[in-house]
């Protein structure tokens, strides 16, 4: 890793680390990669709940009528019969 000049190093606040031994630099890189992986995992978990399954599955909906593609639940007691108030 090329040595960075004093102005950059001083702005980053990593002067000491960057000027450290290769072993320390490796540790810093590994810590950075681990942190990135942890952040990515957290992002995935936070955004993979029921409301974000994508367009292939219907949004869960409190309304009894939002069951477009689901198979009928055999255990349920009621099922819906439509009508127009006309003979």
């Amino acid at each position: 890793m090329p040595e960075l000049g004093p102005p950059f190093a001083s702005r980053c606040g990593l002067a000491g680390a960057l000027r450290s031994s290769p072993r320390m630099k490796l540790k810093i890189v590994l810590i950075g990669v681990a942190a990135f992986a942890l952040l990515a995992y957290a992002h995935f978990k936070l955004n993979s709940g029921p409301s974000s399954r994508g367009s292939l599955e219907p949004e869960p909906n409190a309304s009894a009528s939002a069951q477009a593609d689901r198979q009928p639940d055999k255990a349920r007691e009621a099922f819906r019969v439509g009508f127009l108030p006309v003979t």
Partner: protein
Amino acid sequence: MTKHSEVGTVFQAERFGDFPTMKEALIARKIDATFMIVPLAMKLAADGVPVKIVYLGHRDGSALTVGIDSPFQEFKDLAGKRVAIPSRFSNQHLLMQRMLKKNGMAKDAITLVEMAPPEMPGALAAKAIDGYIVGEPHCATAERKGYGRVLFYMKDLWPDFISCGLVVRQELINDRPELVQELVDGIAASGLWLEEDVDDGAGHRKQAAEVVGKLFYNQDPALLEWVLTRPLDRVRYDDLLPPREKFDEIMDLAVEMSVIQKRMAFEEYCDTQFAPDLGAIRRVENFPPPDVAAKSDR
């Protein structure tokens, strides 16, 4: 059977204001079954939607209504006029075409306009249309309000007229036939109950008008009572087995009018396995249930 029933499955009634919305709900399986105009059900089956007509809900119950002061006395008098129909996929539409042919009139001799049934009485009152043909109680609405009169009852033009049938998703027929049977049995039992005392004051019909008007139709019970009793055969609830011969006639007319492109065999859109033995089904008793009576008294 509804949530108010003492026994049986809970069937949740879902009211619609027009047939296109109902059709989409059935296609999307937002409802499992519905009462639907028969040619539309045939059209759905022809288009590959897995549905079958399993029973009827009633017989007759439609009329052609015109303005109370209008000069129309015969069907031919409607030439050049505007008449509303509930849908091009309705038997009311087929009947109009049948009558045009029978009277030697051109297919476009009368301007037919599609309109949601609840809007028809108002359109007649506003003189936006000259008449409308639809199921009750929309014909009685114009009569009772004094601006309409019945020119023809369907029963007089097409005996045993069929308007709506019970249409069920094939998945439900396959997976839960016992539910379909329960529903059909309930409809048959209700029909027997309604017809039971028709020659003895028709008290059951009056009771039904009260409950249905307040809890399901959101319509004036007095209007429904008018429909169910004036005359007593304005609507009938017997003979609800889908009739092959009549359905073949409806199919022929629908194909002739290009409402349906390809003729279908009866078995392709109708399943009569659920037609009950009327002597064996459980009869309606204690109508209405106490909690329903309490609600309908409010």
